């Protein structure tokens, strides 16, 4: 099985979907001639032509609104935001139109919006954010946050197949940092099924995206101290695998929720509340959260490091859980 980087897996997966289904097309800024800001669609225009790899004006509203219209007419648009941060410009089209159209009009809106997200390379306040929780709050949108090359490809296929608007958060810091085995053939991964990234019974870290790897590194450190931590990768936030989280909580009795997004109103709060509601009796310690502080993402490397949850932050919290 070939070993691919996370970004290669996204690119290969997208190309495979476009070869398989004529209805799939990509649109966005610089996706065609240039091959995308991160080169996910490099070479696509040569293979699929300028109308299936459509360079658009600098118009997030027209990109997402246009994708919605094309989907209503039977196509399967995959829209690219150059950075997840810019989705704010298309908020209305996701939240007001795409998310609510099926509920109101019974017309499915099968669009995928690819959102390169996350920090770790001094992108500053407008090229580093993780806005998944804002959209998780909107009924009608699905939220996908792959952490591995294997999941990146499989979840992209599922996203394109899904009859609903799907926000596909691809973490930029994983693009070329993470490699893994990825089958050449097409496969899908069902939404709402968490994945055990690392086994353990003493505590569970519930997380997603790049933080899966941070959690894993932290768990490795604690293994030397005889404290075995399960790392549970949610893979999708809407829907999220509540049953699997509760199962882990019941088994481990200690839970840490970890995300790169800021703390207040982050999706971790929803998980913590659910654990409190449904597994209170199974807990041996308070639910803990590790998340970014409630500030914009800072630019300067030292500030950004202080902002992003680090391995040592997770280790420290897990040690507190261990000692509780």
């Amino acid at each position: 099985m070939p070993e691919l980087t996370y970004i290669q897996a996204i690119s290969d997966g997208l190309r495979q979907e476009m070869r398989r289904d004529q209805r799939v097309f990509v649109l966005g800024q610089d996706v065609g001639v240039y091959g995308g800001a991160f080169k996910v669609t490099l070479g696509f225009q040569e293979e699929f032509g300028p109308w299936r790899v459509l360079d658009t004006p600098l118009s997030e509203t027209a990109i997402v609104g246009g994708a919605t219209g094309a989907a209503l007419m039977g196509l399967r648009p995959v829209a690219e935001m150059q950075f997840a941060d810019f989705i704010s410009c298309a908020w209305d089209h996701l939240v007001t139109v795409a998310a609510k159209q099926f509920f109101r009009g019974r017309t499915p809106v099968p669009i995928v919006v690819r959102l390169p997200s996350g920090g770790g390379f001094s992108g500053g306040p407008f090229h580093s954010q993780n806005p998944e929780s804002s959209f998780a709050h909107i009924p009608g949108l699905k939220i996908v946050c792959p952490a591995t090359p294997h999941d990146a490809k499989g979840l992209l296929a599922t996203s394109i197949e899904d009859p609903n608007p799907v926000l596909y958060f691809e973490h930029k810091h994983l693009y070329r940092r993470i490699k893994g085995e990825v089958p050449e053939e097409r496969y899908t991964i069902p939404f709402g099924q968490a994945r055990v990234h690392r086994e353990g019974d003493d505590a569970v870290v519930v997380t997603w995206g790049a933080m899966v790897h941070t959690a894993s590194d932290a768990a490795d450190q604690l293994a030397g101290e005889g404290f075995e931590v399960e790392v549970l990768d949610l893979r999708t936030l809407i829907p999220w695998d509540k049953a699997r989280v509760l199962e882990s909580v019941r088994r481990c009795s200690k839970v840490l929720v970890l995300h790169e997004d800021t703390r207040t109103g982050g999706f971790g709060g929803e998980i913590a509340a659910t654990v409190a509601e449904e597994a209170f009796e199974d807990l041996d310690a308070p639910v803990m959260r590790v998340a970014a502080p409630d500030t914009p993402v800072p630019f300067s490397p030292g500030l950004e490091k202080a902002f992003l949850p680090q391995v040592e932050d997770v280790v420290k919290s897990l040690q507190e859980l261990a000692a509780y």
Partner: protein
Amino acid sequence: MAVREAEPVGSLQEVKEAGLDREDLLGIYRHMLITRGIEERGHILYRQGKIPGSFYTGRGNEGAAVGVATAMGPNDVGTPLHRDMGVHITRGVEPWRIIAQYMGREGGPTRGRDGNVHMAVPELGLHPMVSHLPAMLPVAVGMALAFKIRGDRRVALGWFGEGSAARGDAHEGMNMAGVRQLPVVFICDNNQWAYSTPTYLGYPIEHIADRAAAYGFDGVVVDGTDVLAVYREAKAAIEKARQGGGPTLIECLTLRMEGHAVHDDAFYVPKEMFEQWAAQDPIERFRTWLRSNADLTDDEEDQITSVVKRLLNDALERAEESPLPDPAGLEQGVFASAEDLDTPHHK
């Protein structure tokens, strides 16, 4: 820079050249009467407390809406707004479903999930508006993009008002449509009042249609009370788009003859303005035209009027028989399932 201002329609011969026979003309008249009738009935029902929420009408816009919709081809699509009841009627939405929609009943196109004119029947090529105007313009552009990608000879129509022309969606949608020369026609219902905001506080140029030049396509201003002139301009623009000639912006000039919604008495609109535009009421204007140009007889008129009246009576009765939606089903239908894609256009 002056945009083209469309001439009024003159003789029956001219209309025939535009593709309408006498039956079509009587159909247009009937659609305009149903449009007004349904909104008048709705108004009464609202005052009787039978319609929850708010209530909007398009009085004065019947000619613009019916004229454009009559020019659409059977496979064309559109995203009409809250002054465009005539589009729904012309495309064939059954009146009882509209009244059921007003009343929040299961039989309305949104099955009580949304209210008033926030509705459409997709099988008839229409897609429901949202309140955030003109958010449906980029959506219509995307529909046109799909047609262009697939090579379909279909056209998308996107409606907006002169008020919402101030929003960025209008710019982004038209710009992309112009760049890609997409088969889309933009219809501006310029009824001169965005709630209480007059045109001179909404835009600084003479006509919204002047903007078309900035996007690289044609613009035209037409008297929205002249249903046949609207039809002629829409037909030309739609067929041009179908032939690959790119977008057109048609500005239909009317006056909103009532408040923004029924709670609004429109005190801010000068009385003379209402009087002036009442004198060119689109339905009365067309009736007069039919009598002098197409030999509309008293008998025909009586017959059409009674057919419409019966239709609306039946519609009201049937709407009231439609059940209210079951709250137990509220949480179903937020997400589509694979079977929901099993529609002709999603295959």
